[in-house]
């Protein structure tokens, strides 16, 4: 049985198509990585699951959490799920925390909302949570304001908030992108550790393949509002079948190889990402793809079972 089941999600804002048929499932406690360039629709996928889309957004398709349909929930009922059963961690820990509220109170708030705890009880729980995410003097640090903390500490506060109610699913949208490289690894490790400890599933969104590869069991690659490839992490890294995934892998590996950078031969994906919603008809990677043909004028369907690919000209497979 799957925890999360997303079926044929289509989203448009102001007549711009941003998600074009997203379907995937997550098993309980599964760690799924969602990667893609900015504008590929990965953050919107998360916001859709949270039900936090702007009002202008037009949505079709289905999102089910443990067999409960979410897309038709009233705001009141949806708000009871948020923070309690699904939690979300955002990219910018500076702006995502209320600058005028002490961080302990911000962590405790989610407990007061969902578990009806008193101020006192929620405060002491918040301190315990802060300790769990690595603060060395949580009782004092709970009284700090966000601007008094470092970027890494702020993101730890966000993580403490997210795990407070032991949710079934945590959505982490680029949780380490705004952090220093040295801090990134710590925060990622903490996230992985805590989700395992509480048995909650993690949807980790990033544009950085390395981040996702270290934490997740399975990876989905998004491009142009479509999941172009998904599969178990090692298989996808070892034998990518979609031309876009291959190009993405090539660029990440290039960074490790500093020699090449020195000679100006950093591998890049030819062309530029189309503006969000301006993706071509048919296969979304058309125009940048080296294997393009007539067939790509129509959208390829997802092929394969464990390892699914949307491409007419998969690598390593006889088409």
């Amino acid at each position, binding site marked *: 049985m799957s925890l999360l089941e997303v079926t044929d999600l289509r989203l448009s804002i102001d007549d711009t198509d941003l998600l074009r048929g997203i379907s995937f499932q997550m098993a309980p406690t599964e760690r799924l990585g969602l990667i893609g360039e*900015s504008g590929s629709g990965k953050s919107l996928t998360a916001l859709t699951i949270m039900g936090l889309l702007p009002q202008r957004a037009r949505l079709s398709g289905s999102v089910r959490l443990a067999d409960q349909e979410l897309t038709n929930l009233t705001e009141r009922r949806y708000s009871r799920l948020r923070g309690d059963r699904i939690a979300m961690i955002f990219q910018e820990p500076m702006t995502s925390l209320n600058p005028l509220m002490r961080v302990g109170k911000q962590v405790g708030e989610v407990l007061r909302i969902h578990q009806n705890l008193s101020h006192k009880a929620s405060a002491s729980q918040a301190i315990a949570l802060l300790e769990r995410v690595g603060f060395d003097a949580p009782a004092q640090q709970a009284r700090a304001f966000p601007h008094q903390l470092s970027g890494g500490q702020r993101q730890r506060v966000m993580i403490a908030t997210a795990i407070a109610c032991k949710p079934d699913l945590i959505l982490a949208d680029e949780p380490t*992108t*705004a952090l220093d490289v040295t801090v990134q690894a710590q925060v990622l490790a903490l996230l992985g550790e805590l989700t395992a400890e509480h048995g909650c599933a993690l949807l980790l969104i990033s*544009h*950085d393949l390395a981040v996702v590869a270290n934490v997740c069991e399975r990876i989905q690659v998004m491009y142009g509002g479509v999941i172009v490839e998904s599969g178990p992490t090692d298989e996808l890294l070892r034998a990518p079948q979609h031309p876009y995934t291959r190009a993405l892998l090539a660029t990440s590996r290039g960074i490790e190889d500093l020699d090449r950078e020195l000679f100006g031969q950093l591998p890049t994906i030819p062309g530029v990402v189309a503006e969000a919603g301006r993706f071509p008809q048919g296969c979304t990677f058309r125009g940048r793809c080296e294997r393009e043909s007539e067939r790509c004028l129509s959208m390829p369907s997802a092929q394969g079972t464990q390892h699914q690919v949307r491409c007419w000209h998969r690598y390593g497979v006889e088409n």
Partner: protein
Amino acid sequence: MTEREAAITTPTETETSPPGVTRSSPLKLLLSSPSATAGAIIVGIAVIVAVVSIWWTPYGPLTVNTGAEFLRPSLAHPLGTDEYGRDVLSRLMTGTQITLLSSLGAVAIALVVGVPAGLIAAFRRGTTGEIIMRGADLLYSFPALLAAITLVAALGASTLTATLAIGIASIPVFARVTRSTALGVLSTDYVLAARAYGRSSLQIARRHVLPNIMPILVAQIALLLSVTILAVAALSYLGLGTPPPAPTWGGMLESAQNYLYQDPLLVLWPGLAIAVTVFGLNALGDGLRDILDPTLKGRS
């Protein structure tokens, strides 16, 4: 390279001229904002009325006509006549001229003193700058109307006194805007580079600072004009501005208030003239600011 790094290494040279100001005609830009267009039309009409009134009004604005007091609006007197039988339309037109001249004069005083003061304060951040800005704070804490009343108490009521007082009280507006914008420009990388190359303060002010301040100043002038028009009207209403019998909007209001029971319409015309002009200037100023400085869009 991550998205953040990409953002950081984006060259900053493009900031020399604010985006949106580049190369399309001023008229087209103005028309792109409905607010600015509406404002410009209203202000344009007011200016035309003021200019026309120098040479022509339907009747003499001071011509007393006994026996024709409190006439209702008619073809002969589109806005009726006042308690002395004077034609209200003619008085309103001449009043436009006095109001606009006085307000423009005040803004000119504030501009001529305020902008250089702000520039100096930005370039000489030591004692000189501190003294200038403290002075601006001092003036700023003094409401324009209070300053005007003080000056009138000393010099007596006249158009010049009112203009002078409002102008002086408005100096800090320009000094502050100029200084803060200039400081922003001065701290950008390309100005630091220009300084490193040995460009003088004056060159930097002319090449980098002024072009960047211009759009903000233009919008600020429109907005300040609306404030000064209100102040000029209030002063003449209080009998501290242009003395009678010269027609002013405020003065007309004041005398009309004595005849509320006979002819409430008399209050309406000057009131409407003030409100519409101020509305037009505000709309123009807000619109201009949105056009010329897109980063401020949405702020009031």
